[in-house]
């Protein structure tokens, strides 16, 4: 490989600094957008550099491929709805992991081709190559399964079959064995089999993970891809890949732990909980136990004469695109003298922080959005809590039922309110696939129907009072 001239090394260094500034910027609300743009600029500059010092072949084909990928990325990113953001991130991450694995396979091919081949690079480079091939494949397959779960192409319930633990363990052992083999006596077929085993392992890693935990896995796979890019940087002798990949790997791992903490879960429990068995996973069927339901007019009366109202928005609200009507309802109730706030659970939506993105899209005023810790003490004073399309984040099973998929997750204390109204499409359980005992309580009323339809009926009924 061509030696990297000093000027190019300095540009790479500047780009690495750019990535550090980008992540730093992304962690604060005021600087986030600038940070993202700095990252994008650094990435574009870094990718342009090799065209100026390496005698590249196939330049036209390369540029065409870049153009194709760019168009695909931009179209996908522009078309995607905010509600589908988690699966989009998963998909982008997956293709990145796949690209890293392919690059490592090509580099292995190149190492084997060059005269004296293996002796020149040393075993450490081969270990890094093997790592990139394996983990990149894991990330690709895992992300594809994650995407399928969130896009509801397959059930989001944990998928466990007899002997899963054994196949899972065996594929991990095979992966480590093949990687060792690759380091000791490298051959192309070992690399290819290693990639296939990685694909199998990645799928098996994600299949047993239940719906509500999937976002944590996206974050973890994101960190994995970062580490493969870092290892790829070592193999290719490119410092900007090493630094950028390591930054993402480290910050991604840290972010995964933060998210898991916000949900009251441990990462190992999320990944291996279903493998160990014993978790009481919901069958996802509707219950036929009696509940109290009411029409929009009855609920309107409850709301109109309440002094303190708390709204708990969930993913169902966003899917139905009922945010604007909800906002109007809140405005009307406010004009009538009620004190209304939105209670935002950290993992409402389908990913930590997702609900903030969704409500920001609907232009809900920032001051009315209350974080869980700030509002949890207020529920006992609330006359009515209106739960719109949320289920898991208010499910008392998180406190009372050890073994439930969401057990241990901090929840909104909706059960303490004087009256609770659930706006639901049906009795079908939420994303985590478990029933919510709160639905059957005496002080709970259900308003069945599509969130948007019910919401506008409710709005009209309140206005008519």
């Amino acid at each position, binding site marked *: 490989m061509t030696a990297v001239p000093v000027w190019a090394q300095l540009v790479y260094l500047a780009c690495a600094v750019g990535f550090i500034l980008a992540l730093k910027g*992304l962690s604060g609300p005021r600087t*986030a957008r600038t940070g993202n743009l700095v990252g994008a600029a650094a990435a574009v500059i870094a990718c342009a550099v090799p065209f100026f010092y390496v005698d590249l072949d196939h330049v036209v084909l*390369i540029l065409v491929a870049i153009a*194709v990928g760019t168009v695909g990325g*931009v179209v996908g990113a522009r078309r995607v709805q905010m509600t589908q953001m988690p699966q989009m991130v998963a998909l982008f991450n997956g293709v990145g992991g796949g690209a890293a694995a392919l690059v490592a396979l090509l580099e292995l091919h190149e190492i084997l081709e060059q005269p004296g081949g293996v002796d020149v690079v040393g075993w450490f480079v081969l270990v890094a190559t093997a790592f990139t091939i394996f983990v990149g494949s894991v990330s690709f397959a895992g992300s594809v399964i994650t995407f399928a779960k969130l896009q509801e192409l397959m059930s989001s319930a944990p998928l466990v079959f007899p002997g899963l633990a054994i196949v899972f363990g065996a594929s991990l052992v095979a992966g480590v064995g093949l990687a060792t083999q690759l380091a000791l006596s490298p051959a192309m077929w070992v690399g290819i089999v290693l990639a296939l085993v990685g694909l199998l392992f990645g799928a098996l890693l994600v299949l047993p993970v239940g719906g509500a935990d999937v976002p944590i896995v996206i974050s973890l796979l994101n960190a994995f891809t970062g580490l493969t890019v870092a290892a790829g940087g070592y193999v290719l002798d490119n410092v900007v*890949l090493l630094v950028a990949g390591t930054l993402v790997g480290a910050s991604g791992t840290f972010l995964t732990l933060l998210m898991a903490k916000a949900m009251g879960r441990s990462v190992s429990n999320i990944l291996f909980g279903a493998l160990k068995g014993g978790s009481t996973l919901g069958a996802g069927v509707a219950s036929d136990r009696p509940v109290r339901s009411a029409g929009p007019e009855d609920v309107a009366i409850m709301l109109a004469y309440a002094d303190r109202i708390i709204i708990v928005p969930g993913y169902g609200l966003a899917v139905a695109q009922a945010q604007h009507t909800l906002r109007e309802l809140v405005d009307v109730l406010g004009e009538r003298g009620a004190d209304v706030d939105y209670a935002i659970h950290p993992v409402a939506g389908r990913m930590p922080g997702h609900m*903030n993105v969704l409500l920001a899209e609907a232009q809900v005023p920032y001051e009315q959005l209350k974080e869980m810790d700030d509002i949890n003490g207020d529920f006992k004073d609330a006359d009515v809590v209106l739960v719109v399309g949320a289920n898991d984040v208010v499910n008392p099973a998180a406190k009372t039922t050890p073994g439930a998929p969401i057990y241990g997750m901090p929840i909104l204390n909706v059960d303490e309110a004087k009256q609770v109204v659930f706006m639901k499409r049906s009795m079908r359980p939420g994303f985590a696939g478990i029933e919510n005992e709160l639905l059957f309580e005496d002080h709970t009323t259900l308003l069945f129907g599509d969130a948007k339809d019910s919401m506008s009926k409710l709005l009209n009924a309140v206005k008519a009072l």
Partner: protein
Amino acid sequence: MNDAVVWLTIFVLSVFVGIEVIAKVSSTLHTPLMSGANAIHGIILLGAILVTGTTDNALALVIGLVAIVLAAVNMVGGFVVTDRMLQMFVRRKRPARTEPGATEGGAR
């Protein structure tokens, strides 16, 4: 200093920087931050360009081009989608300006 040790040094320092820069992130920004970090690892595009541009094997060329397409999707899509999310946060911070007439149909 041995080359491998230099690389190890950069790696270890980058781990600490990576953790340090996001240590104070608020949960509101978890989603955009994850998406932005995701875009950054799309820099594997650089590696894909390097290996594709230096191969003379037809099959390797095809695989390399596939890798370039995938990496470009990851990188470009990641930055664009993150920006889209963050745009909404910017608008929300100035509700006074967007309030009139924005109650219904403010978003497409």
